[in-house]
């Protein structure tokens, strides 16, 4: 059974004047790492939000684990990581990670054990009692990832999680994310506008085009696992990056500025 089934999803904004997504069809198998890539305004973030039931589709259906997206959200099937870490300042690192566990009603002992596992996973054990504002941006994002993974959600949704970080931190976190993903076998939907990031991380890259937001093509990433820093220097990596880039270019029309504004306002 597929983890995510997107069928005929259309999403319009501004009283139907802007079509952010048009007739999207996509299926995700368990353990897949799928990146959505495209120019700004192609609806990749909107698609992620529709999958996560943070905004309803205008037409079409999203099924997660065989349930409607709404029910999946109610069942706690989603772990979400946004571009900014969205940590709660009044909670320590450990308590931020424990938040979804508290909401699921885990008892204290079980929470403590899991939080420690998560802290080890993202290598932040010595920062358990720090507050978010005492951490660097990269560390904050690792806490955010640990929180999203803490309750082993069926689906991990990541909306440009490393977009605000510098290149070096980003590449290191890419490697960390991959090793976590291999360890846990989660299914991931990953929104990015970095081609190399998409190719490096994914099992499949979905290239989207704007006006209206459509799937321009899907590139299967057949790089061998586990991927390492050296993977980025292999010829196959370059071929795949070029393939994605050509797909982007062929459909890479640009949005009018006022349309971008409207899309931003509707987020």
């Amino acid at each position, binding site marked *: 059974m597929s983890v995510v089934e997107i069928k005929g999803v259309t999403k319009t904004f501004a009283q139907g004047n802007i079509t952010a997504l048009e007739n999207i069809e996509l299926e995700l198998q368990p353990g897949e790492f799928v990146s959505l890539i495209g120019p700004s305004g192609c609806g990749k973030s909107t698609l992620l939000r529709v999958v*996560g*039931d*943070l905004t309803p589709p205008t037409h079409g259906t999203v099924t997660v684990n065989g349930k409607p997206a709404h029910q999946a*959200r*109610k*069942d*706690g099937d*989603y*772990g*979400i990581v*946004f571009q*900014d870490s*969205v940590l*709660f*300042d*009044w*909670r*320590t690192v450990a308590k931020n990670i424990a*938040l*979804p566990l508290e*909401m*699921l009603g885990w008892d204290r002992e079980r929470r403590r054990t899991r939080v420690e596992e998560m802290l080890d996973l993202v290598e932040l054990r010595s920062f358990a009692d720090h*507050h978010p*504002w005492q951490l660097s941006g990269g560390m904050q994002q690792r806490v955010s990832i640990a929180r999203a993974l803490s309750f082993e959600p069926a689906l991990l949704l990541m909306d440009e999680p490393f977009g605000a970080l510098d290149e070096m931190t980003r590449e290191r976190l890419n490697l960390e994310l991959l090793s976590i993903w291999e360890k846990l076998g989660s299914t991931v939907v990953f929104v990015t506008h970095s081609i190399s990031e998409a190719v490096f991380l994914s099992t499949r890259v979905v290239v989207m085009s704007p006006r209206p937001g459509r799937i321009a093509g899907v590139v299967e990433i057949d790089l061998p696992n586990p991927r390492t820093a050296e993977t980025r220097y292999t010829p196959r990596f370059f071929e795949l990056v070029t393939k994605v880039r050509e797909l982007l270019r062929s459909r890479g029309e640009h949005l009018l500025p006022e349309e971008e504004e409207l899309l931003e306002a509707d987020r």
Partner: protein
Amino acid sequence: MKRIVEWLPALAVFVLVVGLWEGLVRALHVQQFLLPKPSTIVSVFWSDRHTLWPAGWYTFKEALGGFAIGSGLGILAATIVGRFRTLGTALMPIFIAANAVPIIAFAPIFGAWFNPISPRSKMAVAGVLCFLPVMVNTLRGLNSAKPRQIELMRSYAASELEIWRRVRVPTALPFLFTALKVASVLAMIGAIVGEYFGGSLNALGVLINNAADVFQFPLAWAGILVASLLGIALYGAVVAAERVVVRWAPDTRDA
């Protein structure tokens, strides 16, 4: 130790100002009704302590009552308005307009509504003064939670109540304490000014007013000193409570 060193500059300025005041009043032979010497004020502050402190305590209780009632209602109103958005759109302009009204002008009216001698009329003045800043700031705090934080909670299938408890209220706390600090000062002002329009003979505002009427200016000044100390104490209590409740905030230590 470090804290004491941090306070030294302020202490030095204070000593300097008081010293200058004492010196200039002596050197220029300033009349006592214009400005008494600090030493005279302090000696009256000591000799009349058995009148001053009970009066101060009486007024302090009024201020405290008004502070509690006004702030309590302010928090309650902010909670209701924050919960029901349409109510907020209807009421907010009125509250903001009311904020511009010089509330203190109502003091004689409150005297008529409640018994002018009873502490209740002063509590009313103090309470009304405290209400608006607490209400407006708390509401702003409740609405300051970031949309992403709320979305994240939704993704955990959080109920509205849980979003309030775990996001909106903690976000509002620093805003609330900022308002409570302002309100603590306003409460003391409200109580004393309320008493200027009449009140029990053993109230601080009445004592200051009467002392000034009969040219006992050092006593009036000593009364002001008592009021200031009590005002600072109330403010300090709010700051202490803030440090306990909002321990996590990065910037409360300098407040």
